[in-house]
C-alpha cells in the first residue's frame, strides 16, 4: 500500500512539474501564437541554472555558489528568460518560421553544449553536488517527497492563477488581438513585436521554473534530461489538453504523462526481450500519432478554449469556439 502511495506522490510530482512547463508553452502558443520548438532549452537553462547556483563546490565544473534555494531557483528562471530574450530579439520581428527554426536550433545547441562543455555543466556525466533544501529537517524519505510535492503544487497553483489573471487582464486581450489579427492590433497603436517578446520571455521563465523544480527533485541533471523528446511531450500535453486555456494545459499534462509512463511500463513488461531495444521507437511513434491525430481530428483539444467576448463581460455572452480564424 505504501508503495502505491509513494509511487502516486512521485508521479504527481513529475506531472505537476511538467504541467508548469505546459502552462508556459500555453502562454506562448495558446495565447500568443508563438511556436517554440525548443521548450527543452529553456527548461534545461532553468535546471542547470538552479543546480549551478545552489550546489556545493565541485572540482571539475562550474558551480557551488551555495545560494539559498529560492534565490538559486530564481536565478535558474532568470537564465531561461535571458536565453529566451536573446532568441526572441533576433527572430520575433521576422516571419514566424524563423522563431520555429531558431528555437529548435537553440535546443539542439543547448544539449550539445552541455554534453561537451565539461567545465560548464559536467559534460555527459551531468551536474552533481546539489543538496536538496531542508534535507536535515525532513530527512530523505517519504515525508520529504510529500513536502516537495506540496511545494510543487503551490508553485503550479500560483503560476496557474497568475496566468489566468494575466490573460483576463488588458494584456491578455492584447495577446489575443495580436494572435488573431496583427495588422488590426498595430493600427490601434500597439507594438506586436514588443508584446510578443514579453509573452515569449514570460513563458520561457515559467519553463525555467519547471526545469529548476525538476532538477531539484532529482538533485541531478544531465544532457539526458534535455533531449528533444521532452519538447514533443510538452507539446502533446498542450495539444491534447487544448491550446489557449490553462485548465486544458494542466489536464493534458497529467493525461499525457500518465499515458507515457503507462506505455513505457507496458512495453517493458510485455514486449519480448529482442524487441526491448525498439520500445523507445514505438513510444516516439505513439507521441507523433497523438500530435498529428489531434491536429487532424480535434485541433481544439479535449478542453477547448473558451473565447470571452470582452466588451460585455457577462457570463451569458460566452461562446465555446474551438476554431481560430
Amino acid at each position, binding site marked *: 500500500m505504501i508503495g502505491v502511495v509513494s509511487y502516486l506522490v512521485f508521479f504527481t510530482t513529475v506531472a505537476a512539474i511538467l504541467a508548469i512547463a505546459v502552462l508556459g508553452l500555453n502562454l506562448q502558443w495558446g495565447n500568443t501564437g508563438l511556436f517554440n520548438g525548443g521548450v527543452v532549452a529553456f527548461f534545461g537553462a532553468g535546471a542547470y541554472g538552479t543546480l549551478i547556483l545552489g550546489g556545493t563546490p565541485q572540482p571539475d565544473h562550474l558551480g557551488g555558489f551555495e545560494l539559498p534555494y529560492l534565490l538559486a531557483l530564481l536565478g535558474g528562471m532568470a537564465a531561461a528568460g535571458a536565453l529566451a530574450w536573446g532568441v526572441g530579439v533576433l527572430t520575433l520581428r*521576422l516571419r514566424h518560421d524563423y522563431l520555429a*527554426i531558431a528555437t529548435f536550433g537553440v535546443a539542439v545547441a543547448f544539449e550539445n553544449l552541455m554534453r561537451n562543455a565539461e567545465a560548464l555543466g559536467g559534460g555527459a556525466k551531468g551536474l552533481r553536488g546539489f543538496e536538496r533544501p531542508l534535507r536535515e529537517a525532513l530527512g530523505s524519505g517519504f515525508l520529504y517527497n510529500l513536502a516537495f510535492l506540496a511545494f510543487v503544487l503551490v508553485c503550479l497553483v500560483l503560476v496557474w492563477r497568475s496566468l489566468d489573471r494575466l490573460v483576463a487582464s488588458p494584456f491578455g486581450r492584447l495577446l489575443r488581438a495580436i494572435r488573431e489579427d496583427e495588422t488590426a492590433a498595430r493600427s490601434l497603436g500597439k507594438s506586436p513585436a514588443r508584446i510578443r517578446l514579453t509573452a515569449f520571455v514570460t513563458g520561457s521563465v515559467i519553463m525555467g521554473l519547471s526545469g529548476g523544480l525538476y532538477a531539484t527533485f532529482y538533485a541531478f541533471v544531465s544532457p539526458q534530461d534535455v533531449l528533444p523528446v521532452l519538447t514533443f511531450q510538452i507539446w502533446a500535453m498542450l495539444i491534447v489538453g487544448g491550446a489557449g486555456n490553462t485548465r486544458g494545459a494542466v489536464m493534458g499534462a497529467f493525461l499525457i504523462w500518465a499515458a507515457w509512463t503507462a506505455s513505457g511500463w507496458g512495453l517493458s513488461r510485455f514486449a519480448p526481450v529482442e524487441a526491448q531495444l*525498439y520500445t523507445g521507437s514505438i513510444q516516439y511513434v505513439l507521441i507523433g500519432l497523438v*500530435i*498529428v491525430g489531434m491536429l487532424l481530428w480535434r485541433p481544439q483539444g479535449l478542453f477547448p478554449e473558451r473565447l470571452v467576448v470582452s466588451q460585455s463581460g457577462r457570463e451569458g455572452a460566452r461562446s465555446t469556439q474551438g476554431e481560430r480564424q
Partner: protein
Amino acid sequence: MIQHLLDGILVGAILSLGATGLTMVMHMLRFANFSHAELLSIGAYVALVFDPLFKALLPLLSAQIGPLSMTWALVAAILVAMALTALSAVLFDRLVFRRVREKGEELSMVFASFGLALIIRNVIGLVFGLHTKLYSQDIVFATVLSRDPLILVKPDQVAVLGVALAVMAALHLMLSRTTFGYALRAVAENPALAQVNGINLGRMIVIVWLLGGALAAMAGVFYGLTNQITPVIGRDLVLPVFAATIVGGIGSIHGALLGGFVVGIAANLALVVLPSGYSPSVPFLIILAVLLVRPNGLFGEERA
C-alpha cells in the same frame, strides 16, 4: 584546411539539394516543414532496398562504374528512390498537411510536420533496425591529391558533386527559361494573383512536393553513399538544411543552392577551430550570425 574545404563543398552540395525543396515548400505553403529532412532518409532507404533487388534481377547492372563504388544498379535505385520519395511527399501532404491547411490552422502545420517527422523517423527505425548500413561493403580507397598538405578525395565524392551540380544547373535553367518555371515563381510570389492568371494552384503544390521529394531523395542517397545510412539521417540533417534556407533567404531557390554550400563549408571549416563534439551546434551559430547581420538572407526579401 584544404581538406576541410573540399569536404565542406561536398556536404554543401548535398545540403543544397535538400534545401532547395524545403525552401520551395516553405515559400509556397508558408510553414517551416520539420519533416522535410525525413524525405532524405526515405530516399536513402528506398535506394537501399532497390539496389540489391536490381543486382539480383539484372546481374549485368552490378558492374561498378569506373573507379566508383557506385554500380549501375544503384543508379537505377536512385531513380526509383526519387520517384517513390516524391510520391510519398505528395502522400504526406494529402494525409496531413492539406487537411490541416483546409481547417485554416496554418500555424499548426509546424506542429504537424514535427509529429510526422517523429512518426517517419521511428517507423524507419522499426522496419530497418537502428544500426547503420552501407550501400557497398567494398572499401574504395581515396585518391591522394597531394601529400603535403595531405588531401584525400574519394572518386564517389567527385561523382556526387558533379551530379549535384548538373542537377542544380538543370533546375536553374528550368526556373529561369521555361513557362513552368515562371508559373512556379509566380505562385510562390503571390498565390492569388497567379491563380487569376490561370495557374492551377493545387497542381503547382503537388509539383512542388514532387520536385522537393525527388531532390531530397537524391540528397539522401548521396549522403548515405558518402557517410552511412541510419534512421537518424533526418534528425541530423534537419538543422543544417534549415540553416541553408535561412542563409539563402527563405523562398529563394538560388539562395538555397548557395546557402547549402555556405553551411557545408562553414561547418567543416569550423572543425578547424572547434572540437568535433560541437559540430551539431554549428548550423545554429550560422543561423544566429545570419539573423544578426542580414535577417532576410542573401537573396531573400522582406515579407511578413
